[in-house]
């Protein structure tokens, strides 16, 4: 792995410092709430990018896996009385097992089957959650979920998660975990395999890569992090509706990734922050917001298929080349 250039390193340190002190600067409760939501979206978008951006398989059920993680965590806490700290990893595990089991038959074939199958799956999961009154509360949803239990540290220090700031740092912690794990995975040899499958599946197979295994593993990890984002969402919001597993949610995550920059690490992070903020700004437009998103998506694919990050990179490259030419 090439050493990170100094400019980039300083930039990353500055960004990290900013997000660490951000809630001390931005004190409005509403703004802090948006910051928590951005963190959750960043985790979900990074996860989607792993299967979609790096492995090249369009998953249209990502929002449903988010929903499964959210419901699994919430139900473990509410119905079985588990502590949040046990329920969250279990919720992620349940989501990942579900992802693995659906990945096996749907990733077996090449080409168009996976997006089609995941689209059907997304619709199926949504309707099952919306109608399974006994377990999920059906259309009424679940409410009154507790925030994560306090953590006791030595010297009589306890961390509680009652305030929005505490939740912000909790989510931020998991954002960092997700970024570190996914970026390490992508830069490793396994990551190269993913990218090989995206580039040309037949070629990758002829080079001795077990493409089916690579796709299933990538998909399982992707759903695991979707479940993580869902579990955090459930604990933070305290209420869950079937809409949290709707295919529109999958589409919104897709937009985050595509607009930010598909197949890059920075893209989903940028998209996961920018688009929820844009969503809040466009709140008064109600339904028109999604029409606008749809238009944005179509225009982006036509004119900026690599998203904001890809576009910026291309611009930087052009400038560098021009300077070298002089």
């Amino acid at each position, binding site marked *: 792995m090439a050493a990170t250039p100094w400019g980039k390193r300083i930039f990353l340190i500055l960004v990290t410092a900013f997000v660490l002190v951000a809630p001390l600067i931005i004190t409005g409760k509403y703004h802090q709430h948006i910051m928590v939501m951005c963190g959750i979206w960043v985790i979900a978008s990074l996860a989607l990018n792993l299967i*979609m951006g790096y492995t*090249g398989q*369009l998953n*249209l059920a990502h929002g449903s896996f988010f929903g499964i993680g959210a419901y699994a965590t919430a139900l473990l806490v509410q119905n079985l009385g588990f502590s949040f700290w046990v329920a969250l990893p279990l919720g992620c595990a349940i989501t990942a097992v579900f992802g693995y089991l*659906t990945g096996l*038959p*749907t990733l*077996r*074939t*090449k*080409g*168009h*089957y996976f*997006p*089609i*199958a995941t*689209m*059907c*799956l997304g*619709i*199926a999961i*949504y*309707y*099952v959650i919306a*109608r*399974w009154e006994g377990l999920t509360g059906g259309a009424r949803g679940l409410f009154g979920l507790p925030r994560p239990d306090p953590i006791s540290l030595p010297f009589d220090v306890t961390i509680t998660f009652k305030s929005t700031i505490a939740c912000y740092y909790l989510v931020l912690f998991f954002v960092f975990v997700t970024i570190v794990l996914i970026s390490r995975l992508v830069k490793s040899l396994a990551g190269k395999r993913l990218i090989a499958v995206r580039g040309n599946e037949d070629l990758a197979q002829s080079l001795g890569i077990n493409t089916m295994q690579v796709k299933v593993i990538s998909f399982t990890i992707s759903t695991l992090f979707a479940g993580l984002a869902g579990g955090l969402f459930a604990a933070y919001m305290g209420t869950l509706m079937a809409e949290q597993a709707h*295919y*529109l949610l999958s*589409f919104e995550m*897709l937009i985050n990734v*595509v607009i930010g920059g598909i197949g890059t690490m920075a893209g989903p992070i940028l998209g996961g922050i920018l688009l929820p903020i844009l969503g809040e700004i466009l709140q008064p437009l109600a*339904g*028109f917001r*999604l*029409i606008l*998103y*749809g*238009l*944005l*998506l*179509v225009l982006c*694919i*036509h004119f900026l*298929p690599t998203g904001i990050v890809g576009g910026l990179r291309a611009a930087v490259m052009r400038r560098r080349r021009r300077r070298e030419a002089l």
Partner: protein
Amino acid sequence: MLGSIYAMVALGLALIYGILEIPNFAHGTLYMLGAYIAYQLIISLGFPYWAALFCSAAVLFLIGMLIERIAFRPLYTQPMINSFIVAVGLILILENGVQAVWGPAFKRFPGASSSVFHLLNITITAQRVIVIVTAVVLIIALHFFIRHTRLGSAIEATSQNRKGAQLMGINVSMMGGLTFGLGTALAAVAACLVAPVLLIYPTMGGPVIAMAFVIIILGGMGSFLGAVIGGYIIGLAETLFACYVTTDYVEALIFGILVLVLSVKPTGLFGKGH
């Protein structure tokens, strides 16, 4: 009756897939749009049912051609995933557009006839008979069009071998647009036929598109015969499941069928294989 509707929607989807190799995720949304356009024509302009159905099909034919030209044609040379994403964008635009114009509520759609037949011990409404008869007539007409007219043969040739067709002097881009329009119009007719029996609402396309995809995978991607037969199989399966088991988890059943097909015979009943 459900089978007839599914067969028509799936046939349109299979036509489009056969030529353009795009799984058009927005097909269900266009189906929904067809129903709303006919609804508007009947309610505000007082069109008779059949005229509204015909106009809606014509409008959707043009919209389909337009979408193919503007949204999909420039992407043929790019990775497939881009076309999929554009289709998702179209769903967002159309579904929320319809919701903005007509509102999210269910709407009642007046049918061609409200009479009821009694045959032996079976009671059946006239609209259901109309659905079945129209679907069968249309499917046969479409078969005739593809097999026995020059234009139809050109479409079939393009779907079999795009390059070869091009060498034979067929305007393949034109065929792509025509097929997209035709498939979309077919979806609109299906929606107008079924709308008086069910109700119409902006998200009605979701479950239908899921069914239609499972049907064309069951029938074999791009196979016309497979789409029709698959449509009737899935329609029947859904009705039986709803009748004897539960109406709540029909969508899960459909996904189950999909998983079964993908595990046992991914090329479907009448697929050409990879």
